[in-house]
């Protein structure tokens, strides 16, 4: 039975692209936190597992007029018609109504990868290999997160184990709601440039809600109507135009021949 919590939240994230230097700390912190194993010898950017991944996007112009921006992309936590959840044949993807977090249940995943085809953000990753750590390095695994097995899909879940910990802490101190300071995903904590803000979008007092409502805020592929809960900020217009293809200029290097 699912416990129904009265205090509902809608957790979301705002990433300031004007502050991201593409250092990769978020990616690494995420992997450390969630016991994502190091890549195998022949891993590539297309077979690896990076729940939080930094892309480099540009304005499509050529040298020397080109401008670039680093874009960290993780599960965008779609709030409407969540594509991955609706396509999973065996309910291995769930949207927690209490938090709005889209969660993956690896023990139930068949590995059909339909959700990966469904996700427009490429935020879902498949375990192509058995999880392996160099000898002895298991000692440096996060005790709070179970490693996944080969053949299942996984993705960002806003560090769900940290939410559990925060809830336990709240329960042990007799509070009904968690302290926002207790629940911060690893990437948010790790970002050396403080580019990522996290919080409850429904809480009008939260910083994250204010940022998401600002002029600089936009979401990727907003027109497909999936209502992601991850927002991006930029004061550069061309960066905001990256949100949807219809407003972005055609990128020349994508078009070959």
């Amino acid at each position, binding site marked *: 039975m699912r416990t129904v919590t009265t205090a509902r939240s809608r957790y979301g994230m705002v990433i300031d692209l004007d502050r991201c230097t593409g250092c990769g700390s978020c990616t690494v912190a995420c992997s450390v936190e969630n016991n994502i194993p190091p890549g*195998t010898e*022949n891993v590539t950017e*297309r*077979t690896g597992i990076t729940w939080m991944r930094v*892309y480099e*996007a*540009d304005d499509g112009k050529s040298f020397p007029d080109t401008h670039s921006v680093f874009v960290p*992309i993780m599960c965008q936590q779609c709030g409407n018609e969540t*594509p991955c959840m*609706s*396509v*999973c*044949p*065996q*309910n*291995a993807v769930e949207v927690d109504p209490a938090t709005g977090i889209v969660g993956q249940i690896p023990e*139930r*995943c*068949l*590995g*059909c*990868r*339909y959700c*990966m*085809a*469904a*996700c*427009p*953000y*490429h935020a*879902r990753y*498949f*375990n*192509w*290999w*058995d999880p392996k750590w160099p000898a002895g390095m298991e000692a440096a695994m996060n005790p709070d997160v179970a490693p996944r*097995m*080969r*053949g*299942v*899909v996984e993705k960002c879940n806003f560090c769900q184990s940290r939410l559990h910990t925060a809830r336990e802490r709240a329960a042990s101190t007799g509070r009904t709601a968690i302290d926002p300071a207790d629940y911060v995903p690893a990437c948010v904590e790790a970002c050396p440039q403080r580019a990522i803000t996290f919080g409850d979008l429904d809480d009008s007092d939260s910083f994250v809600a204010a940022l998401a409502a600002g002029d600089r805020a936009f979401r*990727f*592929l*907003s*027109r*497909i*109507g*999936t209502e992601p809960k991850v927002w991006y900020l930029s004061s550069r217009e061309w960066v905001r*135009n*990256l*949100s*949807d*293809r*219809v*407003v972005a200029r*055609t*990128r020349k290097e*994508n*078009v*070959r021949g």
Partner: protein
Amino acid sequence: MDERFIPRGVQRAPFWRFMAWIIPWFGVLLWGLYGASLCLYEGLNQTNMDNRFAFGLWIYLDLTVIAFGAGAFFTGFLLYIMKRRELQPVINTAVVLGLICYSSAIMVLMVDVGQPLRAWFTFWHPNTHSMLTEVTFCLTCYIVVLIIEYAPLVLKNRQFRNIPRFLVFEFELHKLMPVFAAIGAFLSFFHQGSLGGLYGVLRGRPFAFREELGIWPTTFFLFVLSAMAAGPSFVLVITRLVERLSAKRLVRQNVFATLGKISGMLLTIYLGLKSVDTLVWINGTSPSAGFPAFEYYQRASFGTWILFAEIVPFGLVPALMLLNAKVRNHTPLLVTAALLVLAGVTLNRFVLTIQTLSLPTLTFDPFLTYVPSWQEVATFAAVIAYGVLLYSISFRYLPLFPQEREIARIER
């Protein structure tokens, strides 16, 4: 050597020649099984699929063979439900082809998924909103139906017929065949449609996403129709191929013509609806999702030619050919038209699976390419070899073509 197992009254190649035909295919099958077992044992890292190309050759293969396998349900439907008796001569071969296509699709799916041992979870924790659940349920039921439909054929083998219990069971089962044909038609309708819906519901892939009609995206109906158009053509092409390989006439020309006519009519309806659907998609669905449709075709390898090819040379041309009685009575032209139909459906499935995944969604995504690994190709080849073997064995030992004896007699 094996004469006692060959149906009476038909001539089959000498055993050694049959073996010479079987053994290379068996070798291919073994190679493919080795590739597939590598994928199962070592994991899917043996394939060239990746997180971005989460589906590859196998899903494409599945969608295509299942479309081809539609001949089984549709012929059964026409014969048993619509009482089109003229299709009786090809019902057996249609059933065998259907069984081959569906069983191979299921086998490949079992290699394709990461945790095949959990396949039953779909039944246990079904998400009824997922097209894949619908596909899984229908495929499972339908493979049972196909096996039941195939069983009487097996029991028709001379050695089984000598056993009264088998004989009577085959007789009784055959009498109930319309029930199975009806169930099969019902199930096939849904899973052919759901396979289309599989991509049509992908909101995040505007290249494949389609508006809903009722509760299904339009590709649901287009898939049903295109599969129904392809099924008879596949039966036609394979039967003709077997005729050529065995140097025998197996069915009468009028059967071919009927299959061609059915294929042509359905293809025409399909094309009409597909064109409307494409126009709605280009002008409405895709732009409103933020994707200018012309952009999909800006990649050199996947230009507008692919859309044109699907609709004109592999759609309109065979449709017009098949609707023409003269063409239908001219076997080489008829077979050419049927091959074009199959090519069109193959291309359509390719576009929906491979092109959908290679096209970028985010503005800074690259256009991707994918080349299957040898393990994937081997598994693919194993499916073909399995099909050839099962069909060859069925053709040799089971009375697939009821008209064969008669035609042979008349021709003398």
